[in-house]
């Protein structure tokens, strides 16, 4: 318990957030858990025939992304746990934070230079909502902050 939870998806901030999560885990000695949420709700009712293949393929990609994260932790001498959840991104993150009574949630943000103010606000707002609901500190990591 008191895990460091790192949400990963493979976007612009993914390496930065993983690096920060690994550093934090080493610094605090707390267990590290990478989570990938299969959230297909934004696809908005795809073809019924493809609903199941979409889910399977998203799981497949999630497993690959988590394996990349696990390897990054391993190369830093850490054994990280990996978890795939399915549902709404926000709800699933809240659920795992509460289940694990997490120490902190780390979220990766897109690159500042290439993103609109709207995009920055969105991730900030997302993090604030989770923090308010769970009381667990949420940290946003930008790619620029990691060497």
């Amino acid at each position, binding site marked *: 318990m008191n895990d460091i939870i790192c949400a*990963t998806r*493979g*976007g612009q901030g993914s*390496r930065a957030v993983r690096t920060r999560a690994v550093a934090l885990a080493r610094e605090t000695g707390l267990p590290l858990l990478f989570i990938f949420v299969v959230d297909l709700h934004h696809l908005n009712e795809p073809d019924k025939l*493809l609903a199941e293949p979409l889910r399977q393929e*998203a799981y497949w*990609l999630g497993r690959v992304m988590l394996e990349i994260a696990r390897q990054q932790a391993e190369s830093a001498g850490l054994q990280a746990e990996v978890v795939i959840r399915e549902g709404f991104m926000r709800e699933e993150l809240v659920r795992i934070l509460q289940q694990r009574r997490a120490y902190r949630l780390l979220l990766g943000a897109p690159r500042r230079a290439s*993103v609109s103010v709207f995009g920055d606000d*969105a991730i900030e707002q997302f993090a604030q909502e989770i923090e308010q609901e769970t009381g667990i500190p949420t940290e946003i990591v930008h*790619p620029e902050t990691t060497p």
Partner: protein
Amino acid sequence: MNQATLANLLASTANQTDSFIRLEIIFVVLLSIAALVAYFSRRLRHLPYTVALVLVGGALTFISGETISFGANFGDIILLLLVPPLIFEATLHIKWEALRRDLLPILLLALVGSLVGAFLVAWPVSYLLGFAPLAAFTFGALMSATDPVAVISFFRGLGVSQRLALLIEGESLFNDGVAIVLFTVALGIGEAMSNGAAETFQFNQALLQFIRVAGGGLLIGITSGYIVSTVILKQVDDHLIETATTVALAFGSFVLAEQFHLSGILAVVAAGIFVGNIGSQNTSPTTQIALNNFWEFLAFTANSFVFLLIGLQTHINDMVQIVPKIGVAIVAVLVSRAIIVYGLTALNNRFNRLGRIPPHFQHVMFWGGLRGAISLALAVKLAESPDILGGTVTSDILLMTFGVVLFTLLAQATTLTSLLRRLGLTRKPTHVMEKERQQGQLLAKRAGKAMLDKLYHEGGLAREVWQAMAVVYDDEIAHSSHGLITHLQNYAELKQQMVMQARHETLKAERSALAEALRRGLIGEEVYRELVEYTDNRAAALTILQHSQDENDNNRQPAAGSGP
């Protein structure tokens, strides 16, 4: 045979020979001009090749003071000779999966857009210029279609995103079929009215005619494409015969459809898509290379002729006299295009959230709605029968069409690159290009090293030479590999793209393995079909996920798929 008859025959043969030689000379001169213009426009870079051709053609006509005669109608040369191969070549590259994904907005723009566009252009032309409603609608019909030839040739050179290119190409390929039908309907009504046979416009009849012409054309294209793809391309393994067959298909499907008064262009579109998706799978790699090379050359030649001919047929002096009318036509066409693109994409985005078209795509679709050869060819055809709408109006329509076409090519086409650049849509981002470059170098070096090892193991290299070369290769591979890893660390999202690309490749390999297992009798037909369907569905699902990812990256919206 008496002496007089023989003399007549000889004279006639001599005349025919003369006209053939004249045609041959024109062909050689035009091809030489096209090659020169292509060479210089590549060096100038800022001036699109197609626009340069129009300018050169226009300048030649202006200097000589007369338009060139080819011994055949300009409209016929464009429509019957040059457009079929251009459309066929364009459709060969359209992947059905990608087309299917955006079929709704494409058909919405092509069908509804063309029809509404014709009325939207007709109204101000009738109101401001005093054209009779039928004449104004005929002009609207001419202008309602964005020209696939102008659009495709331009977008090919710009390296825009595949989806944006497909949206614009797809719309332009399908909507000219609609425009031609609308034009034919308008002419038919005009003819009937001038003969006193009809006084009212019957919408039901026009709709039925449209369905018959468009549907019939597509059916002919699908049927002929199916026969060529599954019989000739599958059974014959000779790249020359197969290439010749595709030429016969491109022109044959067009002529056959036209013979039955159906849409020849839609027939070519359907045949091309069929061959590009089904037929090409039934050919050997050698044939595919031969087909690509041949059609690339043919498209270049036909494309060059189309734009050069537009320039050569431009009546600058006559156009100057009706500048205000041309101005009204240009504004009408632009306003109508804006209403159609922004209105219909908003409708699409409302009901088709999976296939939403982002705002910066819409701006390009609006400004990229070029008009070209097909509008001109139809206007010239109209000019052949001036009695239908009246001589002055017909002449005005012809010149207004030239005016709008020239405006879209000279003003819109030349500024499209700037627009694409401002919207960040030209080429791939620098970091993506860099990843591809490094990945390409790594792949090439690994292939070189593999060949080196093969040569050595086959006894083609002395041990010392192999060892020395291998050390250098290993060093280069390590260097490239390190560069790629560092780059991927700086741009983490590229790793995700790489995963998705690799997944596409592995799914293809899974599919091929199933085909091989079926061929070897390891699995039966039923299991094969079941597993292939499963693999294809996974591939389609992957494409949707990738598509959604790209959209998120482009829109940067706080959707569930974005975030960490």
